[in-house]
């Protein structure tokens, strides 16, 4: 016996069972010492430990008598084990039956009595493996009672399993249901006396499985455990059979029982290589058997995920992905909800009826913040359990639970930030999602998340680009047009392509009047506002946006109206109104108001874009205000100028009326005294010259005044320049001679005709020649010349007068300009200004050059060449419509 008893394989297992039992009992009590279920479960484990201890003591007994003593405790602790397990299941499932429990504990007393009265075990025999009891009929009663207790525990657990919806809890119950089968299945072997006792191992498994079920919150899905177990078993079998076969074959072939070590080594290496193929094949085979119909969808899902990594178009990928996913997990439907500006929208679905973003949750929906900040996912029933979800409004709950019939809500996260939510509908027959379903879903989520993020980035980029382009166009409109009305029409026409606008306007605040004035308006149909319309500022939406420095959005006027002034809008069919402040520096100048006939027309994206567009409108408004101020100032100056011109004209007219008889009389007087050599003649000449000078000045003044009023008339025609210059030269010669000056006329014979008014050209020439005469020293030559140059006829008067300074050249054509050197001479400084105007009106230009020959100046001007074809048509009157200088 000593040899048997010293056998560690025989002695160690019960000691191991004892240690395991104690260890697990301590763990269970440590987890929740006060819990009644934990206390009873700890008793169950302690019974198992004692059972192991008594078996050990029995096996280690020096003789059969001692062994019988310890063996008597084995059925007592064994029965206690089953009673405590049953008691535990009653507490755990909250289905305690006091009567049944009392009976069970009474049975324990009875069995103890049987044991100690010798009715259960007769004696101990020594078998090849050790001691074995010779049992009496009461032992079968004990076995039967244990069996009944275990069946009752199983029934209790199975009932609870059936009414439990939560997957995790069902898994836990599965462990508790499967665990007791181990001692029973393995314990059957103990009824064969020839076999060594192995029920001990069954009990160890029983304790381990149930304790794990109770202690661990997250348990491996029982189906996964079975699947993996099957795969391992099959692979082991596949490896073991050829190994044993080959070893046996080799051994026989060699005729020896000893197989050389190298054969084992080669065989093991070969099988190790084969193992990976075997594993994959067996794994696939088991998976296929397990998933059955779903297998092809799971494969399709894997394939789809693999091939679509680079896709960025959400619709192209997400809808088929969700459809395949729903089929793979046998879900009724699958939906993808993503944040999109103003809300969380349904963006993709396995259900074709729900593929439009008409379903949305508020962007701050509590379910989103919960999924973002708490790990894991949500089941439908969590809506009843999680406090944070009590913040969900009834609309949100209805949408998620009734409309989408969501059963499982999975977050899509990138670096702990939620980018979307996957909602899975119900499974057939109210089945719950199993761990393998979750495995499939969880393996799909990274792909879905990447797709969503890619699509989101792509969409955001697209949106940003289109917004930038739009804002660029709006900016161009604003800066290229000073007229606010035209700018606004162009602006709204661009903006309405992306934002719903049925009516809009810009209102300016006029604080001094406590009014708003509309400076630009737009209406797609019936005009709602008109430009220059005024309305009271107090109590208006514009007053609100000025006070709050924020936009104001009224989503539906028929539901709520913040400002009574919106009543007009409502009556004209407008439902949504948004008002944005227009800033000029830090002050609010007014508001940019948009209205739509659609309720809730403006999305968060729209409002964001409108905020930027309002900046452009503000620029246009400021431009308008600057332009308007400038226009007012200009009109005022023009008014003053006009009054001044009218005064000059009236004054000149008043002077010229009495001057005409003076000029005429003085000329007659001079003629009368032509032969008189007395001083009277000189006096008469002086009188005539002065009167003529005064007459000319006044004519110039009147011409200038006419020009200013755009009143000069031009008779443009084809002019023979040659003849005109000859005529002017002959007219000026007496005057020039009076100062000893000569006039050189240089005109080529081939000079073409010019298109001009000959009287006005003559006026210009006379003016220039008079100036040359006046400022050139005596006994010098003044040159009058003409030539053709680039389609124009250039006429020049070259003198020997002191050269003009740069400053004089720059200003000499300005009306009333008189340089220092001419201040002493007669004149009002209008002659050259009139010349410039007359030349320019005829399509030419006037300039001053330097006379290198004489060191004097050259006054030149150009006239357009008259073509043959246009000569006839040009015989029409042209009226000067542009004033010389309006500034």
């Amino acid at each position, binding site marked *: 016996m000593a040899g048997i008893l010293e056998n560690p394989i025989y002695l160690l297992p019960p000691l191991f069972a004892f240690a395991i039992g104690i260890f697990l009992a301590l763990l269970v009590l440590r987890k929740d010492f*006060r819990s009644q279920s934990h206390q009873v479960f700890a008793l169950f484990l302690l019974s198992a430990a004692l059972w192991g201890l008594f078996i050990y003591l029995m096996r280690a007994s020096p003789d059969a008598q001692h062994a019988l003593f310890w063996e008597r405790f084995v059925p007592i602790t064994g029965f206690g084990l089953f009673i405590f397990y049953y008691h535990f299941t009653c507490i755990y499932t*909250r289905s305690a039956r006091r009567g049944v429990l009392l009976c069970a504990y009474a049975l324990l007393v009875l069995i103890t009595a049987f044991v100690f009265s010798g009715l259960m075990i007769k004696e101990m025999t020594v078998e090849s493996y050790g001691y074995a009891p010779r049992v009496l009929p009461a032992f079968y009663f004990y076995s039967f009672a244990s069996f009944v207790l275990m069946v009752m525990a199983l029934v209790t657990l199975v009932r609870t399993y059936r*009414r*439990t*919806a*939560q997957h995790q*809890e069902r898994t836990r119950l599965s462990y508790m249901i499967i665990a007791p089968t181990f001692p029973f299945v393995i314990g059957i072997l103990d009824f064969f006396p020839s076999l060594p006792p192995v029920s001990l191992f069954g009990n160890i498994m029983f304790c381990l499985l149930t304790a794990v079920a109770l202690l661990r919150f997250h348990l491996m899905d029982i189906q996964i455990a079975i699947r993996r177990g099957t795969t391992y078993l099959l692979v082991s079998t596949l490896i073991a059979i050829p190994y044993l076969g080959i070893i046996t074959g080799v051994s026989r072939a060699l005729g020896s029982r000893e197989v050389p070590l190298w054969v084992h080594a080669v065989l093991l290496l070969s099988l190790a290589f084969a193992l990976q193929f075997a594993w994959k094949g067996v794994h696939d085979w088991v998976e296929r058997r397990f998933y059955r119909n779903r297998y092809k969808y799971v494969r399709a899902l894997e394939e789809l995920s693999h091939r679509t990594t680079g896709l960025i178009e959400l619709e192209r990928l997400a809808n088929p992905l969700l459809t395949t996913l729903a089929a793979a997990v046998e879900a009724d439907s699958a939906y993808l909800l993503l944040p999109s500006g103003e809300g969380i929208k349904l963006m993709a679905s396995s259900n074709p009826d729900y593929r439009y973003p008409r379903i949305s949750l508020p962007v*701050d929906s*509590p379910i989103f*913040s919960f999924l973002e900040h708490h790990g894991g996912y949500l089941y439908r029933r969590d809506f*009843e*359990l*999680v*406090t*944070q979800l*009590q*913040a*969900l*409004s*009834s*609309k949100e709950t209805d949408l998620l639970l009734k409309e989408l019939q969501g059963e499982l809500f999975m977050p899509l996260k990138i670096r702990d930030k939620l980018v979307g939510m996957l909602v899975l509908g119900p499974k057939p027959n109210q089945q719950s999602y199993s761990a393998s379903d979750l495995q499939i879903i969880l393996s799909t989520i990274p792909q879905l998340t990447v797709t969503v993020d890619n699509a989101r980035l792509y969409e955001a980029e697209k949106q940003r680009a289109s917004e930038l382009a739009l804002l660029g166009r709006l900016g161009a409109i604003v800066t290229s047009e000073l007229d606010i009305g035209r700018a606004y029409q162009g602006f709204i026409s661009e903006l309405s392509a992306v934002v719903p606008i049925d009516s809009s306007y810009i209102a300016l605040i006029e604080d001094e009047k406590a009014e708003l004035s509309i400076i630009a308006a737009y209406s797609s149909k019936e005009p709602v506002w008109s430009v220059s319309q005024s309305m009271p500022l107090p109590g208006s939406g514009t007053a609100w946006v000025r006070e709050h420095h924020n936009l104001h959005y009224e989503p539906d006027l028929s*539901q*709520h109206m*913040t400002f009574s002034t919106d009543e007009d809008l409502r009556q004209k069919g407008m439902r949504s109104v948004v008002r944005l402040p227009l800033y000029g520096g830090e002050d609010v100048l007014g508001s940019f108001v948009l209205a739509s006939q659609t309720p809730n027309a403006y999305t968060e994206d729209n409002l964001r874009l409108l905020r930027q567009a309002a900046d452009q409108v503000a620029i246009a408004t400021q431009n308008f205000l600057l332009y308007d101020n400038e226009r007012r100032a200009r009109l005022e100056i023009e008014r003053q100028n006009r009054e001044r011109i009218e005064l000059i004209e009236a004054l000149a007219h008043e002077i010229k009326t009495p001057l005409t008889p003076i000029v005429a009389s003085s000329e007659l007087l001079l003629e009368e005294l032509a032969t008189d050599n007395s001083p009277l003649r000189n006096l008469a000449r002086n009188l005539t010259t002065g009167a003529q000078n005064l007459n000319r000045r006044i004519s110039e003044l009147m011409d200038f005044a006419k020009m200013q009023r755009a009143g000069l008339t031009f008779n443009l025609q084809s002019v023979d320049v040659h003849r005109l210059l000859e005529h002017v030269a002959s007219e000026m010669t007496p005057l020039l001679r009076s100062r000893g000056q000569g006039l050189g006329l240089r005109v080529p014979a081939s000079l073409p005709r010019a298109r001009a008014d000959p009287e006005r050209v003559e006026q210009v020439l006379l003016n220039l020649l008079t100036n040359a005469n006046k400022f050139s020293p005596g006994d010098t030559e003044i040159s009058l010349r003409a030539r053709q140059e680039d389609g124009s006829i250039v006429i020049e008067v070259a003198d020997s007068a002191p050269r003009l300074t740069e400053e004089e050249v720059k200003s000499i054509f300005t009306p009333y300009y008189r340089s220092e050197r001419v201040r002493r001479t007669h004149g009002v400084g209008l002659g050259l200004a009139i010349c410039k105007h007359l030349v320019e009106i005829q399509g030419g230009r006037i300039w001053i050059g330097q006379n290198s020959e004489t060191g004097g100046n050259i006054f030149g001007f150009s006239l357009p060449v008259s073509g043959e074809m246009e000569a006839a048509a040009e015989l029409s009157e042209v009226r000067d419509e542009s004033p010389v200088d309006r500034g």
Partner: protein
Amino acid sequence: MLPEDSIFRTCTKEEIWQRYCGFLDLSMDEFMNIQKHLLMEQIDIIANSQLGKKVLRNQRPGSVDEFRKTVPFTKYEDYEPYLTEQNEAALAEKPFFWCHTSGRGGFFKWIPYTQRAFDAYLRHTLAILILASAERKGDMRVKPGERVLFNLPPPPYLSGSIFYQVSQVFSLRVIPPFDKAQEMSFQERIEQGFRMALREGVDVIASIASVLAKIGERTAQQSQKMKFTSAMLHPALLITILRALISSKLNRRPMLPRDLWSPKAIIFGGTDTSIYRKDVAYYWGKEPYEMYGCTELLTIAFQAWNKKWMTFVPNVAFWEFIPEKELAKAKEDKDYQPATVLADELEAGKAYEVVFTHFYGMPLVRYRVGDMIQVVALKDEDTGIALPQIVFKTRIGETINLGSLVELDERTVWQAIMGTGVGFMDWAAVKEYAQGKALVRLYLEPNGQVEPEEVEKLMDEKLKEMDVDYRDVGSMLGLQPVRVTLLAKGTFERYYRKKQSEGADLAHLKPPHMNATEQAIQELLELSKQN
């Protein structure tokens, strides 16, 4: 199976705890998120109703700040006549049921409860049952079928209405049953309830604190001269009494309710809770559990399993609080609109008036319920609750101000009377003036022989012990400010019966403890003379 029963049958303990008591685990941010989200939903719901438009002044605030800036405070009068006339067309949602209590002026305050609101209160009621019976976090002792001894007013009073509705969705054996209780007077119900509880046992007691204290006291007194009657022959009753007798003898003390019953939970509501807490714990062997609510809102705050302080619930109303400083300003300037703080802005050690806005389509908006609370801590280290911890302080208007030096509230006066050791039936205190100085006149019905001067002296001593400010009153006023008038034995009982015969409502069967009307005091004095 009733809907809530199925939760208890199919969910794990952790899940059940989470469902009903999970709000105690919220962070302040989560608490405020729930508050703000539900407030915005509430505005959406009520903004289009007739009553909602009236109280919101035709506005639809788009944010919490805008709501607080633009919507004025309201009192019950602002909802008239819609609520008193039970005008359902003016409400945002059709009520699930109506309930009422008495207003201070003697008229009923009717409050409609919506289905969604009831769902929230149902959870809170079950949370109260769970927490009241728990001794640690996650300790689930309540199960369907509990026997509840119900000593609170029956339907259509709020507590009765809610308990009745709860019993329709969760198995509760209410003792005495509501259908029978409605036909009985308050006193009959209490007697019948305890009689039934002796036979059937009891798991939970929901009661007014003073009633339980009185029952305890009476049981102790009567156990000495207990006589066996034929009613005691009922086997269950006999076993209960025998067991109680043995237990009291073993402990060498008179028989107490704790010997007769071992309830899982004792739930209190009302201002006298803290006064009777110790007595009830002694007589009944169970630390009582306190909750704070009112007719307008059943559950405002309640205690955790440690039965120490109370925590506001996040999902029945939007909470605002008017600090004492603001109240003082408003007292000086009637036109001043006091500013409020939110739950995450409360400060420990300060007192606030509670202002709330209903959720779930119920009608009250920025409603000043007239209660003062004291914030004792911003979190409870014992339980790990990270939300402000409060105690109920007083009802505004139920205080007696003495020369602006001290504000005596009902609880202080009550505790002082208890502290004198003078046995009493009931009391009423009013403010009086003598030689131009403010005094407290206490009308007390003592149980035994005692002199008024003696009670005055004891009261003065006790108040000096309890209230620091009170100590200065005597020296400042130049006299001892407590005056006592002793009422003859049975005065309050006669008052009760008189009011009962006049058909007075339950809330008016007794005079209020603080600031009773002159008429009520006169009636007491006259009834005292009738002895």
